[in-house]
């Protein structure tokens, strides 16, 4: 029928489930149980992802506050605490498509400039 979706290569069990949902028919016990397990699993996984992102934002805020206060100005950049985790967290946030605020760009440039200079110095350049 023209008005029906095309379930290309989908198993019969899933077609039955999707059609039952589409037509508002009651689900069997097995179908309902699987739907419940699926919803619980996805909800847990989403919480883990959200917690992970929250931890990244918290760390970013801590490190950037310290940078803004000038606490790291005279420190060997390789000795700044949590910088490895900070850079990973920034990459995760940037990958999400969130715009990068100007102060973070400045901090990243500062880190890159100071770490390159330190490494080059150590390598005898």
């Amino acid at each position, binding site marked *: 029928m*023209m*008005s*029906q*979706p*095309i*379930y*290309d*290569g*989908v*198993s019969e*069990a*899933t077609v039955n*489930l*999707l059609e039952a*949902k*589409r037509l508002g028919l009651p689900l069997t016990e097995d179908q309902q149980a699987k739907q419940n*397990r*699926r919803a619980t*699993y*996805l909800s847990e*996984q*989403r919480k883990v*992802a*959200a917690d992970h*992102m929250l931890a990244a934002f918290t760390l970013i805020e801590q490190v950037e506050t310290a940078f803004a206060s000038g606490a790291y100005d005279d420190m060997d*950049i*390789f*000795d*700044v605490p949590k*910088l*490895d985790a900070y*850079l*990973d967290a*920034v*990459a995760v*946030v*940037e*990958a*999400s*498509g*969130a715009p990068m605020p100007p102060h973070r760009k400045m901090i*990243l440039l500062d880190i*890159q400039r100071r*770490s*390159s200079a330190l*490494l*080059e110095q*150590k*390598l*005898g*350049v």
Partner: protein
Amino acid sequence: MRFWEIASPPAKAVVQPNRSVVATRRFLKDLKPFLGNPEVIKTLRDFLAFRKTAKPTEQFGKKDAPFTNDKMRGFWHLHIVFGTIILIYQVTPAEVRLIAIINHKLLDVKNKNFPNWLESLTTEDFQPFDIDEISGHEEPEGLSQDQKQAVRDELYSMASNTEERQMLDFALKRQNITGLMPNFRFATDDDKLDPNVLLAAFGNQDSFFKLVSDALQNTRMREQRRLLDRSRPRHRLI
């Protein structure tokens, strides 16, 4: 912003010809102490997978950058662990050249001749390098036919659900399945299912996203028809 938008990195650049990976004898020696460190090996493996096809100027995360000093121009460094374990490498149109891994904390004056050594390197100083061979990595098992069917079923289940449909659309636009992995892990009953294993089971990224696109299209037609039907006047006024 929803969790799956945050969880999905942006689409990678258009794939360029696959570069081969070569390494110096020094690099192979430097790597030995890290062979038992899964984090270092994983980062190195991910980095090489990225560098084989990425644009030469594209960065691998925030810890990868070119040297700026004239003597080191053309060389890059990647902080595998920031400030401690640093890979020095070079990218050419055909090769990723692994030059050295240095432990910054242990660097001393002996390295004062490093730029001269770099300058003296020729193509003959490099040999083919295979991270899997070196680290004893075994390819993970692929998906069974039942698991592949379960993934296909899950795609249509998602496409038939308003919110999850948006997740599919988002993944399709970004050409990235990271945010969809919880669904596929549940469907395949494999908590550790790796995205690369999933894509490989369906041929490659392009063929997998063709499936995503088909699932969206095959279910979208119904919605579009419905909307079209609703907007069509049933009776002429005159």
